[in-house]
């Protein structure tokens, strides 16, 4: 009974992680978490046009350029990942 429950929760979690990008897990490290937050933020900036305009005014760039910059930053939002400790 207990075993099947655990199995259920795990499989549910896996399902969630597969379906929703950014769903956390127990071994999430600081870098992965930050990358996720940053990508979410950039996607939100690009999605909210007034916000893009707000940044564009501050940086004196066109809104189109600002959108491009944010999309480009989604590749490595927090710089290079840290080296993995071999386990």
């Amino acid at each position, binding site marked *: 009974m207990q075993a099947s429950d655990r199995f259920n929760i795990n499989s549910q979690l896996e399902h969630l992680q597969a379906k929703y*990008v950014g769903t956390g897990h127990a071994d999430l490290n600081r870098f992965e978490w930050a990358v996720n937050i940053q990508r979410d933020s*950039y*996607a939100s900036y*690009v*999605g909210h*046009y007034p916000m893009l*305009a707000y940044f564009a*005014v501050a*940086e004196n760039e066109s809104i189109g350029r600002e959108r491009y910059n944010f*999309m480009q930053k989604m590749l490595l939002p927090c710089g290079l990942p840290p080296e993995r400790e071999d386990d």
Partner: protein
Amino acid sequence: MYLYSITLQKPTGIVCAINGNFSGGKVQEIVVARGKVLDLLRPDDSGKIQTLLSVDVFGAIRSLAQFRLTGSHKDYIVVGSDSGRIVILEYNKEKNVFDKVHQETFGKSGCRRIVPGQYLAIDPKGRAVMIGACEKQKLVYVLNRDTAARLTISSPLEAHKSHTITYSICGVDCGFDNPIFAAIEMDYSEADQDSTGQAAAEAQKHLTFYELDLGLNHVSRKWSEPVDNGANMLVTVPGGGDGPSGVLVCAENFVIYKNQGHPDVRALIPRRLDLPAERGVLIVSAATHKQKSMFFFLLQTEYGDIFKVTLEYGNEGVSELKIKYFDTIPVTSSLCVLKSGFLFAASEFGNHALYQFQAIGDDPDVESSSARMMELETDEGFQPVFFQPRRLKNLLRVDQVQSLMPVMDMKVFNLFEEETPQIFTLCGQGSRSSLRILRPGLGITEMATSPLPGVPNAVWTVKKNVNDEFDAYIVVSFASVTLVLSIGETVEEVSDSGFLDTTPSLAVSLIGDDSLMQVHPSGIRHIREDGRINEWRTPGKRTIVKVGYNRLQVVIALSGGELIYFEVDTTGQLMEVEKHEMPGDVACLDIAPVPEGRQRSRFLAVGSYDNTIRILSLDPDDCMQVLSLQSVFSPPESLLFLEIQASTGGEDGADHPASLFLNAGLQNGVLFRTVVDMVTGQLSDSRSRFLGLRAPKLFSIMVRGRRAMLCLSSRPWLGYIYQGHFLLTPLTCGTLEFAASFSSDQCAEGVVAVAAEALKVFTIERLGETFNETAIPLRYTPRKFVFQPKRKLVVTIESDQRALTAEEREAAQKECFGAGLDENGNIEMENGDEDEDNQLSDEQYGYPKAEKEKWVSCIRVLDPRTEETTCCLELQDNEAAFSICTVNFHDKEYGTLLAVGTAKSLQFFPKRSFEAAYIHIYRFVDGGKLELLHKTQVDGVPLALSQFQGRLLAGIGPVLRLYDLGKKRLLRKCENKLFPNTIITIHTYRDRIYVGDIQESFHYCKYRRDENQLYIFADDVYPRWLTASHHVDFDTVAGADKFGNVYFVRLPQDVSDEVEEDPTGGKIKWEQGKLNGAPNKMEEIVQFHVGDVVSSLQKASLIPGGGECIIYGTVMGSLGAFLPFTSRDDVDFFSHLEMHLRQENPPLCGRDHMAYRSAYFPVKDVIDGDLCEQFPTLPMDMQRKIADELDRTPAEILKKLEEIRNKII
């Protein structure tokens, strides 16, 4: 506290725009998304943009696309928004609404990373639509027709790819083969794992084709190929029989033609000569023009230059891609090429424009680049092609649509000492900046003003025949004479009109079918078409004092109070029908116009000096019987019946039955409106509104073919129906004495009016607008401004990053013009004879971009009355101004001084850094000049300045510091360093200081003079990213955050009392602190999601005697207001109305209204007036249903809505 939120000026910026035949005719329309508003625009025959429909959708529209089913003549609109749904709309021409055809849910709401809505692509044959997210998800819906020819939509087909960022999608034109969609994608999964950075460096964008197999009902990745890593946009290339198919990939510096199984054809985008080498050129918007025989693309760069791209192609594919400089217009978010030869340019910032094509850039020019040219130069890298922007050659601007975007700062102040305060807004960015002075009301366009010999009393216009289109005469009455002007090519005085010119007139009108009537104090003159004149004379020595008339009926009031009623009989004779004695003198009269197909109008309204208005019957059965009586507060001065025709939607927007209103202008300046029962003549449902200091005189005029009311009080007002609402709006022109509608060859629908000794002809423009603006251009992006009320001056600070100083620009321009003339001297010779013509206007072309360390800035003193800049100080050496305030230091001789906070070489990335920061102190000297007293270096960027108890408070980074004025510099008096991030706003009241932190909301401080100490005694619990704030009362402040929320926080009463009563001022407690913050916490009392970044807040009253409300301005260029409710009943009523509307009238784009208004925090104690105001646009039965639930009638609800709006503006 409960607030009523209302948008005063809908957003004026444009997120995206599409064009098509949405109404199904030959006419092309433009649909624009303005964030939360969807508009349908149409350029009329004269090239003016008219707004046909504007709908608040309560959601953020992110993308739009149009499609057409094969064989159909009407385009549908697909909307990608933050609702997690795809919505297909159809414009219903008859009802003038958008009908929601389909709404399919696919994900969570909100602008999320993996929920589609950001991108939309359409199969060019209208068979499928793809909706994509920034990452991973793409869904394809198949569109089809059912047997009844209705549009059907399939369930979604997934084209997902995880760990993949999408940059752009578009449809590929492949005729009637299976639909294909193209996408620019990048896989980041390896880059996230590889700590050496190699994978990231090798990460490559790919162009991927997704094929929708209509037979298998399945989407597959068909083809994927690496593409330039700077790629950002895709443009469909016509295919099938019209072109080579495939896509244009716009990348930084390149345009590349790509197709499956086809080698790349790439060409460089030409560069401006003055562009720094490290900057790329990015395409930000594109439009395709397609005719039967040819097609071309217009691509606009981030600097505003438009390039025309053409392809040379044959059977073996595309052989050449040519890019040619076309013209330069301000940077757009969308371009729409209309079939009628117009280009609609939806500007990113500032006014939008409509251009007409003069040419399509066919003549050979050197400023072009092509794929062949690139092949030649591949050895030594790409040799860029340079060009110099020139004046418009192919485009001609025909119209502008005002846009306030972005409102940088806003203040409400009655600087001009007018009846109502003006709204001063700082708008625009860079070279397109302006200070705009907004006044509530409609603008007028004066067509002509001519002086008159003497002071006129009245003016009328008459036609000679009922069927005439235009007026024949303008008749002006003076104290003892009447002047008749005939309208033709010119307007000139005539004497053969038959009118008696030796007497003043009381009324002049067309009567019967073709005869004229002049009523003068001693009689009525009836001029028949053949020139015969009949005179009716008043009995005895009595004179006519008032007259009421329509085309078939005339009622005169003689001195003493006798009414005589005339009718036009079948032979065209004016016959006396009835007499009636009124109890006293008559103050005013009016007869409703004759209803269509009837013999006479049934009602006569008579206003008397005993403060009553009577409705008398004119029916033969009960002629001159009093039907009803209404007493009013003050004697009526003028009466007007205004019939509102029945409507079932259409241009005027809403369902409503016909109704008749009696309007009365009372002597105390109030306009009194009441509904007249069309059968019994009973009066009910009265409403009144104060218009001005003089008794309003009412006139009927025509506005867009409908009867409207002009009320002339101390300023003129126009009452008209617009999209289902009755609007009463002031006109922004001086006082008028008398007016009449005017129609002639040159001016189809105008107004002729007399004012002082002049005759004015004007038209009323842009109906439906709330504000009329006066714009004063500025040099750089305006940041903040202050008033100098004593001298009536405005001081602005303007700063721009990445810009060259004025001298550098001038030098650069000189250099370029030498070169520009050599290259295409002929063209310059032809068009421009003077040197000045060669100067490109910065407003159109923008400033050249410089390196990011460069800053330019100026401090400007403006006299807004003369629109003159009295002083403009350019700051030197990359110094830029960020804060400003006026300050009166105590016991100092200088009077009002100006403090400006500046920073030198400010950088935001990777971390905020600067070389130095200063506070400048200026003195106002005569002639509106500034004189620098001294400059004090400080250790952080001063982003907030404020006067406090005769000293200067400055927020310098995280430090709040109090300065006193010294001889050589400012002297530090006291400081508090405990603020979390950066102080951006400071408000003061008594000994309290309300400090706003950029990231941590508000902190309340206190200054103890005896101990010379500043300390924080309360703060907010939420980390709010503040963008604007305003002090509301002793315990309350209003703030707005970056995410589009407006909120109020208040210190609980008991805490506030405790702090005030405590002899130490809460100091002991302060030392304790709580949760790393202040000992006391504020409570959030109001919370509302506006859906737009609010950049300024202010408490003000926009109308004399109106309640104070909070006015806000936003980045998208809208203005709104929050009005506090004064009674619990109103709160109940409006919250119930809002609740029913949420249920019965869900928002158009599928976002739940409550969820939208609670997007970041649950909405609290704010009722959304924009939703409530959609009530009149509902179908009649729905209106009745809701009204029943509220135990009211629809009319009562309308009245309530009107009343509350009138309290604000």
